[in-house]
C-alpha cells in the first residue's frame, strides 16, 4: 500500500517536472510546477516530516509560485512570445542532461553499504522537536537567515525601482 503510494507520487512528480520543461506556455509551466511541489509535499508526509510538508506547501505553492505567476502576468508572456531556440542547441542540451542522469543513476544505484538507524523515532518531524533544535543548536544560522531576508528585501526594492536615468 505505502509502496504503491510512493510509486504514484514519484510518477506524478517526474511526469509534471517533465511537463514544466517541455510546455510552450509559461503559465502552464507554472501550473505544472505547482503540481510537482504538491507531490513532493506528499513525499515529505510519507517520510514522517509533517511540519516540513506544511512549510513546503506554504512557501512554494503559496509564495514563490504566486510571485512567478505575478511576474508572468506582468510581462504578458504566452506561447506566442516564447523565444525560439535552434533545434541543435535543444538536442545538445537534452543529450547532456540525459548523460548526467545516466551517470548519476549508474553511480548512485551501487550504494548498498549504508545502514539505517535502528531505533525509529516518528516524532522528529513534528514542530515541537524541530523548533527546539532550531532555537538551540541552530540558533545562529537562524538569525543569519533573517539578515539574508532583509538584504534580499532591500535588494529587490532597489532593483525593481524605476531608474530615472535610463528612461
Amino acid at each position: 500500500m505505502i509502496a504503491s503510494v510512493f510509486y504514484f507520487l514519484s510518477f506524478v512528480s517526474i511526469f509534471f517536472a517533465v511537463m514544466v520543461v517541455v510546455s510552450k506556455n509559461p503559465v502552464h509551466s507554472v501550473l505544472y510546477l505547482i503540481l510537482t511541489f504538491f507531490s513532493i509535499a506528499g513525499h515529505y508526509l510519507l517520510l514522517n516530516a509533517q511540519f516540513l510538508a506544511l512549510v513546503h506547501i506554504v512557501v512554494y505553492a503559496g509564495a514563490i509560485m504566486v510571485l512567478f505567476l505575478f511576474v508572468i502576468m506582468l510581462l504578458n508572456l504566452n506561447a506566442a512570445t516564447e523565444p525560439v531556440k535552434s533545434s541543435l542547441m535543444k538536442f545538445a542540451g537534452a543529450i547532456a542532461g540525459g548523460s548526467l542522469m545516466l551517470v548519476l543513476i549508474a553511480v548512485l544505484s551501487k550504494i548498498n553499504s549504508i545502514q539505517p538507524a535502528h531505533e525509529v523515532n516518528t516524532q522528529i518531524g513534528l514542530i515541537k522537536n524541530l523548533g527546539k533544535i532550531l532555537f538551540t543548536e541552530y540558533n545562529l544560522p537562524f538569525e543569519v537567515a533573517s539578515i539574508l531576508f532583509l538584504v534580499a528585501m532591500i535588494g529587490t526594492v532597489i532593483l525593481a525601482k524605476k531608474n530615472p536615468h535610463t528612461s
Partner: protein
Amino acid sequence: MNTILSIVPIQYYIILSAILFSIGVMGVLTRSNAIIIFMSVEIMLNSVNLLLAAFSTYHNDAAGQIFVFFIMAVAAAEVAVGLAIIVMIYRNINTIDIYNLNKLKG
C-alpha cells in the same frame, strides 16, 4: 519498525532525486526563457530537499530537516531577487530571451 524506509529502500529516493535533478539540468540547458530556467532551478533545489529529508528520516536525525528549512529560506530570497532582475531586464530590452543578453561578449 513501520516507517516508509523499511518498505521503500533509500536507493529509490536517491534515484528519484537524481532523475528530478537531471530534468532540472535539461530544463536549464534546453530552454531560453529566463523564467522557465528559474523554474528548472527550483526543481533542482527541490530534488536536493527531498533527498535531505529522506536521509533525515533514514538516520533518525532532525538536522537534515533543519537544513531543508534553510534551503527554502535561501530559495525564497533568490526567487525574489531573481524575478526583480528579470523584470528589470524586460523593462530595458523588452525580451527575456537569454540569447539577447550577450552585450558583455567581446
